[in-house]
């Protein structure tokens, strides 16, 4: 028997799926990354640390994403919302005479005090109003455990950042066949009055947009390692015509 798929449903006011952010600017892609989804799975399992053995089993498996657009009262699709840029300063307003608070002030690379106090400006990007169905292929022998864990997670699960708490149950079923999964996803979308926006399929195929993502985790923990993955985006017909 081939490896089954889990249907995961990602819905929240804010989501954030970073792929290659460094330093003070934390970006998000417009759809969930494989590293983000597997991070969520590890969280549900309560699996901390490197998890190389687990991750290596997921690395060759498929993951597909369907992105939906919300509709307004007249059943018309809403405009796509721009990314939310959340601005934050870190490390200001601490008392440098207090031994604990001193530690919260950013230091230079040499560990010295920075000129002018050292508070940092950071930018975090979020998707607003986004809804995704994710088809995650999982090793057959793990499917039951994963289904259990996602429904009763060991650690909290969240959509890319800890403050992105889902507004819908994430786990929506195990499917042996992808077309059955897509029927179920379409049913949920209809019940929520959502319209398909685009799909993200793994591999390079005849489609609308090709991306290479460095988002296949090989090792989590202190020293994370990732492998590349090609994906192809397919825009839904309606959007295509509208440009």
């Amino acid at each position, binding site marked *: 028997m081939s490896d089954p798929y889990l249907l995961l449903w990602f*819905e*929240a*006011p*804010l989501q954030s799926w970073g792929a290659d952010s460094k330093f003070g600017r934390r970006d998000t892609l417009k759809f969930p990354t494989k590293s983000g989804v597997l991070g969520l799975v590890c969280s549900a399992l309560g699996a901390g640390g490197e998890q190389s053995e687990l991750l290596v089993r997921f690395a060759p498996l498929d993951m597909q994403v369907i992105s939906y657009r*919300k509709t*307004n009262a007249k059943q018309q699709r*809403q*405009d796509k*919302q*721009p990314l*939310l*840029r*959340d*601005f*934050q300063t870190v490390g200001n307003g601490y008392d440098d005479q207090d*031994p*604990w608070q001193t*530690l919260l002030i950013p230091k230079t690379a040499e560990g010295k005090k920075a000129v002018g106090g050292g508070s940092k*400006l950071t930018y975090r990007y*979020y998707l*607003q*109003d986004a809804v995704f169905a994710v088809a995650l292929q999982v090793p057959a022998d793990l499917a039951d455990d994963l289904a259990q864990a*996602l*429904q*009763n*997670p*060991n*650690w*909290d*699960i*969240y959509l890319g950042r*800890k*403050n*992105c*708490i*889902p*507004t*819908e*149950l*994430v*786990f929506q079923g195990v499917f042996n066949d992808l077309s059955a999964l897509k029927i179920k996803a379409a049913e949920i979308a209809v019940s929520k009055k959502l319209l398909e926006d685009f799909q993200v399929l793994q591999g390079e195929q005849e489609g609308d947009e090709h991306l290479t993502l460095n988002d296949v985790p090989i090792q989590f*923990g*202190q020293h994370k390692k990732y492998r590349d993955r090609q994906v192809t985006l397919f825009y839904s017909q309606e959007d295509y015509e509208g440009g």
Partner: protein
Amino acid sequence: MTNTNPLKNTRIEFHILQSFPVTCLNRDDVGAPKTAIVGGVPRARVSSQAWKRPVRLAMQDYGAKLGVRTKHIAELIAKSCLNLGANEEQANACGESIASHISKDTLLFFTETEANAFASYAAEKEFDASKLKDKETHKVGKKALNLAVDGIDIALFGRMVAQAAELNVEAACSFAHAISTHKVANEVEFFTAVDDDPMGIREDSGSAHMGSLEFNSATYYRYVSLDLGQLYQSLNGQNMAGAIESFVKALYLAVPTARQTTMAGLSAWDYAKVLVRKGQSLQASFDNPVKAKGEGYLAPSIEALNADLAKKEQMAGSLFGKQAEIELGNVEKPKNIDDLIAQLQTFLPADAE
């Protein structure tokens, strides 16, 4: 601690509605109140980090004590030795000796409890530094390290020490961004400032400065969850009741400090539905913006929150895992914050208080 965590996968979810008059609780990089688009309409927003910090700092006012991470542990131990009656020379020698056993010029997360424990150990040896053995020191240290006594905020909010992963603590609480339940447009306050003209020089009277600042007014939905299993693990099951008390009190009163001097927007919760649950955490969506209909936003927001949570509970069935539901701000069944804390504390295992 035993191997089984009696609170694993049990969390307290706070669904809070809180109305603010004219405020600018959280500013973006141009000084305007932060916003988000939810359900296709603009909303007022306060980022999670902006609300976590005042809560963390306020916890100190309600009995939570912070730890320190420092290179100066020798001095801290010496100070404790002095308190226990050592003379200065003995205290310094014991401090140096013990510090050398547990740290090699690196930062150490350290608490007053530990300093006192080491000092008592030194006192047992009559403050004779040559009698202090490193193995015994380690035993004393291991026994004394205890977030429950003076590191509760670290257990709650977590910390990441890039250089020493073993010192990392996973946060037990998570905050969502607070988002208004209704459509909000920021407003611009135009203001002028008048010169007092102390020298009587000016012939015309009028403003000497003009400026503008943005503000809004909103009823926020705040979702905060406290993972009791994680807290139990980080605190070794100790002082859970105290942690919950200081956290809930701080959560109730602490408000972001931005523009409080000009706008003084301080409000506590208007309404809260507190759930003790197992299963996946779930926040309410308020995807459909609440309308005031001439009666303000609070009443329809309470209605919408309860409808949303009831629907989620009904649809999730057994997965909802509800253990308890406590309501604060219900006029017919009034309860206060102390009732809430007391009721939450009943969920703790007998040995965790």
